[in-house]
């Protein structure tokens, strides 16, 4: 693989869902770059289009009602959007894997976990049934579950254990890219750290790049190299962890940081971002954040801002990004 080509390059991706209630513009021109071995944090509120973006990369948007209307998804230099169903199947689980939000529902209740891990091996590796089973067993042990539990069913495992099984399924074929969609939100706080650590360790060991979808800025600070902030189906700010956290340029990102309670400053009230995410069936004209933005001007109301390139790769979708805010 050529090191110069990014592992993943999403260009101007648009996804919409057509429903009875109207057309939902879920993803509106997302641009993303991920280098090999890198961990990207995709951050945003519920409904910002993070999961839709992730599912589009695997081409798993339920169609109908969902549809990729335009854009390119370059994976290792090849555009996945025009791939046939058969070609795409060879990518899924093999080159790109995904961990879903809720481990309680992500495993098939009527199949043993041994079968479920072996299945993905049998699909992508030329191994016999027993070889695949052996490999699955080793993977299970690698995620910290004793081998004698291979024959058990998902309901016999706790939430944290199930997520470990899901991680085993996702990583057993050594994918180049792992997409983890809020992998710890459904877990107990005490388990969250363990699962994150496990993912982080395995990932480094296998050299897998990871896209971590979350709304926990603390987690991002701990494990990500780059950060993308998503709002109403767009990446509003993107850059290295350092840049985005220390040199925040988009008012929405600012707002996100402002709404975290700080341990060293005892504030009387938290500062939530006023207002609501816009209804994705009726996005506002101009900058989609303008109705909630404290710095909003006439220009913001009428014309969508373009990406403003700042230091290095750091960019923000705001007219006033260069000026800094205040």
């Amino acid at each position, binding site marked *: 693989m050529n090191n110069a080509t990014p592992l993943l390059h999403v260009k101007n991706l648009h996804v919409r869902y057509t429903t*009875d209630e109207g057309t939902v513009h879920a993803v509106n021109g997302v641009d993303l770059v991920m280098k090999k071995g890198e961990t990207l944090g995709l951050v945003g*509120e*519920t409904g910002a289009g993070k999961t839709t973006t992730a599912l589009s990369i695997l081409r798993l948007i339920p169609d109908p009602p969902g549809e990729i209307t335009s854009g390119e998804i370059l994976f290792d230099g090849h555009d996945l959007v025009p791939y046939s169903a058969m070609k795409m199947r060879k990518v899924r689980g093999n080159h790109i894997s995904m961990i879903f939000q809720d481990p309680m529902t992500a495993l098939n209740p009527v199949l043993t976990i041994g079968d479920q891990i072996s299945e993905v091996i049998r699909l992508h590796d030329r191994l016999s049934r027993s070889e695949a089973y052996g490999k699955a067993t080793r993977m299970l042990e690698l995620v910290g579950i004793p081998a004698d539990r291979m024959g058990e069913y998902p309901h016999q495992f706790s939430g944290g254990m199930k997520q470990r099984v899901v991680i085993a399924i996702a990583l057993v074929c050594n994918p180049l890219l792992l997409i983890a969609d809020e992998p710890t939100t459904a877990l107990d706080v005490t388990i969250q750290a363990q699962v994150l650590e496990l993912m982080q360790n395995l990932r480094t060991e296998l050299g897998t790049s990871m896209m971590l979808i979350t*709304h*926990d*800025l603390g987690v991002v600070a701990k494990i990500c190299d780059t950060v993308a902030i998503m709002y109403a189906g767009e990446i509003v700010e993107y850059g290295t962890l350092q840049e985005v956290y220390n040199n925040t340029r988009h008012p929405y990102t600012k707002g*996100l940081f402002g*709404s*975290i*309670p700080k341990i060293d400053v005892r504030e009387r009230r*938290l500062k*939530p*971002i006023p207002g*609501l995410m816009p209804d994705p069936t009726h996005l506002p004209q101009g900058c989609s954040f303008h109705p909630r933005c404290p710095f909003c001007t006439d220009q913001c109301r009428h014309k969508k801002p373009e990406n403003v390139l700042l230091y290095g790769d750091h960019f923000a979708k705001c007219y006033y990004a260069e000026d800094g805010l205040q």
Partner: protein
Amino acid sequence: MNELRAHEALPESDRMVRRKKSQLRETWRRMLKNKASLVGLTIIVLFAFMAIFADHIAPYHYDEQKLEDAFLKPSRDHWLGTDNFGRDILSRIIYGARISLQIGLISVGIGVAVGGSLGAFAAYYGGYTDNAIMRFIDVLLAIPNIVLAISISAALGPGLVNAMIAVGIGTVPIYARVVRASVMTVKEQEFVEAARCIGAKTPRILLRHILPNAMAPIIVQATLGVATAILAAAGLSFIGLGIQPPTPEWGAMLSAGRQYIRDHWHIVTFPGLAIMLTIFALNLLGDGLRDALDPRLKR
């Protein structure tokens, strides 16, 4: 990031209140959007209209016999032909709508009243009462529906009222279960607790507070139940129980026409079509109602 959720939560509860207020209108709106259930509703209104104004619509009286006109094929004078007594089949079907709809509604009424109160009491009192009632329901459920209706009907003897009772009792277990299940869920909610705290009496709590909130599944089940009841009653008449000739009940017409099928297909075809169309319409309406009342179930 709990704050992100916190400020979303408020308008969400606001939306809930608005939703509750216009639930009826919302249900109606969703019903109207569902073309299939509209078709069902239209057919049923048509049949109801036929039943009510049978005297004015039917070209002949249902019992008007003209032996010289027996077994006529469908023609301009007799759109659906005549039967073995020379009676006009269309007229008998129109009058038959009266009987069938009546049976459907009344036997479902019996089923809902008896089964519903059994289910409501079982769920409300729980414990021993619940156990006793539900074991009795288990006994009834051990006999297939139609067999239960047939044996009750056999015991009570023929006749319209007995058929209604037989079919009605046959459906008691279904309503008992549906009502019990929905009362159980509603019973645990806080407003019932609140009503009890201000000293409301049991029947009042059941009727004023619990039942209205458990209504949706009962309405759906009852709509579908009218269909099942009409079918069951027609089945009873078909084997000679239930409604007796010369009453123009659709099942009885089939039963009487059965021996002539070799040469006169139209005698059994049209009454059967009438049954099928009614049941079809009721099923469409019932499915539509279910989707409208509980959009989560819609697929």
